[in-house]
């Protein structure tokens, strides 16, 4: 199987380039990046590719000047299996990912029950392989039941395929437990993903403290709680030397601490969510619960500071933090409503807001969406280089549309972008060279 993409605007995050060219894919792998002037017939002759062979078909895809980029690798997707399959299954999450240009989902263990044993991990891996059209890499919990008391069987879980260990939004508040888990994880070479937050200060908060929260009378948390959580974790990293990733950095105040930790040579990376990059606290308006996420949306100053940190490379990956919630969990007073938003399908169009606002160019965006998460997890994907798997997304960065949540492929439709005018759509998605989504 040979694919030749011609007339493509190639977004290469490794080289930092955005230029017209062609891309040759064979046996599910990228073979070569070719110049714009490539003549398909001549190329096939030179490479001894028989375009009409019935055994080894060759397909020429004319991209018509649209963007071709490495597929998105999304760390921190919640698929609600086991436990709440009515909210999202591997099948629907996989279809949503494909439609969103996401070729690898890294799933969260905050299910019911928690994915904290090799047996449960094997179950979800089997479900994922049978149902999802994209790559699925599972994370496992760091502590049993995400209760912060006893570490999980990190070694066995890694053997069973866990790519990282996280208690998700539960902070391991017992520093003794956390430091031991970090120490043990280091000996296994495991990546620990934590949620930097001072859990007592942020308990019960539904908004970020400031004028908006005061006006709406919502229980709020100071953005300082994030920095306090990060500061604590950095101190524990100095003690233990573990490989650590902060799931979401969303405030300006946490950034200097992150910068210092990186400069000091700690094995630390940090991500952020697409919601914190494209929305701010005022979007909650009249208690719209689809805008309730965790941590809560921040001020516009924080949003811009975090976008700048993505540009500079201080923040590494951007995630969707895809969190399906059913209507009942959201149709409640704001304080009581569940947090989280679905985002697999809106990740790319929302990211295009940053491109159109000239905050980030396309190679920088795909460095955060594809290359950095691949590096973090040691994957060969996430780049447009020879030998990398042909996980690709073809998209039109300018195509306008009005978001209609009922058109989403996710089982849950809790997106804050419902009704929003957006610009940028996925046209096709390829996983190891095979098309998994095509927009008609």
């Amino acid at each position, binding site marked *: 199987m040979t694919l030749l993409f011609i007339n493509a605007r190639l977004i290469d995050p490794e080289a930092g380039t955005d230029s017209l060219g062609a891309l040759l894919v064979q046996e599910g792998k990228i073979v070569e990046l070719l110049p714009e002037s490539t003549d398909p017939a001549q190329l096939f002759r030179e490479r001894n590719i028989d375009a009409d062979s019935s055994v080894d078909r060759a397909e020429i895809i004319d991209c018509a000047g649209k963007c071709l980029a490495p597929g998105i690798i999304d760390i921190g997707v919640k698929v609600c299996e086991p436990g709440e399959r009515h909210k999202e299954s591997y099948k629907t999450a996989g279809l949503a990912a494909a439609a969103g240009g996401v070729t690898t989902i890294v799933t969260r263990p905050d299910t019911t029950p928690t994915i904290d044993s090799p047996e449960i991990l094997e179950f979800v891996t089997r479900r994922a392989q049978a149902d999802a059209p994209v790559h699925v890499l599972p994370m496992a919990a760091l502590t049993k039941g995400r209760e912060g008391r006893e570490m999980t069987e990190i070694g066995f879980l890694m053997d069973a395929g866990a790519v990282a260990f996280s208690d998700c939004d539960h902070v391991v508040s017992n520093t003794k437990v956390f430091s031991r888990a970090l120490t043990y994880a280091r000996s296994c070479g495991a990546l620990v993903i934590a949620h930097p937050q001072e859990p007592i200060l942020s308990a019960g908060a539904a908004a970020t403290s400031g*004028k908006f929260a*005061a006006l*709406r009378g919502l229980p709020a948390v100071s953005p300082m709680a994030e920095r306090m959580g990060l500061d604590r974790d950095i101190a524990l990293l100095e003690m233990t030397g573990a490989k650590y990733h902060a799931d979401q950095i969303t405030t300006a105040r946490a950034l200097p601490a992150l910068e210092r930790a990186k400069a000091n040579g700690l094995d630390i990376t940090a991500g952020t969510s697409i919601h914190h990059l494209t929305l701010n606290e005022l979007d909650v308006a009249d208690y719209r619960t689809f805008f309730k996420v965790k941590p809560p949306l921040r001020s516009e100053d924080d949003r811009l500071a975090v976008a700048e940190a993505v540009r500079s490379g201080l923040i590494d990956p951007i995630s969707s933090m895809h969190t399906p919630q059913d209507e009942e969990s959201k149709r409640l*007073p704001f304080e009581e409503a569940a947090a989280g938003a679905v985002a697999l399908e809106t990740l790319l169009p929302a990211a295009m807001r940053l491109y159109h606002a000239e905050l980030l160019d396309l190679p920088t965006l795909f460095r955060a969406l594809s290359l950095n998460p691949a590096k973090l997890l040691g994957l060969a994907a996430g780049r447009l280089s020879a030998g990398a798997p042909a996980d690709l997304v073809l998209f039109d960065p300018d195509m306008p549309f009005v978001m209609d949540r009922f058109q989403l492929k996710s089982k849950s439709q809790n997106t804050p972008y419902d009704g929003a005018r957006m610009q940028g759509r996925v046209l096709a998605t390829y996983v190891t060279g095979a098309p998994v989504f095509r927009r008609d």
Partner: protein
Amino acid sequence: MSSPKSASQSASLAAQSFGHRHLLGIEPLKPHEITAILDLADSYADLNRGPEKHSDALAGLTQINMFFENSTRTQASLEIAGKRLGADVMNMAMQASSIKKGETLIDTAMTPNAMHPDLLVVRHPHSGAVDLLAQKVNCAVLNAGDGRHEHPTQALLDALTIRRAKGRLHRLNIAICGDVAHSRVARSNLILLGKMENRIRLIGPPTLVPSQFAEFGAEIYDDMREGLKDVDVVMMLRLQKERMDGGFIPSEREYYHRYGLDADKLALAKPDAIVMHPGPMNRGVEIDGTLADDINRSVIQEQVEMGVAVRMAVLDLLAQNLRKSRADAAAAAG
């Protein structure tokens, strides 16, 4: 002047300038709408002092009071307001019923909604809950307090009390003292008095008066003596012990010493300054008992009286708009 007729005349005048289906907060109101409500409430205050405390403004309409949180005075005030206007009033004590059985707010509210009420009066412990409910029901909704968000009729009755005592509702120095953080009364008052162009000072310990309130255009004082200098109105707030989940103050006696209103501190305000309290009072915690009862300074009883008048005015206006929208819908349907 005090005949029911004058109330109904001002009611139709007021309705022309009040264009809301629900009253969920002070925030969406414009200054002329606030004035219209207060003018109408003035005429109802006259009615209430007369021999026949009755009008038929709400005749044929059903008013349901749904209280998801304990209330004695607000509920009584709203009940009597509805009854004096001729509505059929029913009280539902929600904290005792279905909520404990795991039913959601929307489902709980849909039950009385199916009984075709015309006016739904709601109090709920969570901010924004009344807004949510108003989106789902097809009658007029009056917010009787939602969490720490708003309590619009309290702010209106406070405004009416001030206007009657001071002769105006603008360019006054008004101090709001105490537990601002947990108070929906403070928020609604801050918004209303700000819209009417008064100078507002917030006085209290920084744990109860967060600095972000400065962004509403209020001046913040943590020294009560300094803050009370030359004010026209002293509004005390109740220390909301039930909403506090941690130590906000070291003790009630220290709080009373530093932030409790007594004659000594009040002497710093203007000689004719009035003292207000939304009730219920914690005597000896935020206010000295003798001062609260001093009829020369305290207008606390007047606030309760104006509460009924203001609520009659609001119910009347909501009912008029409801009838108008129903008539329009019927006309449109042919």
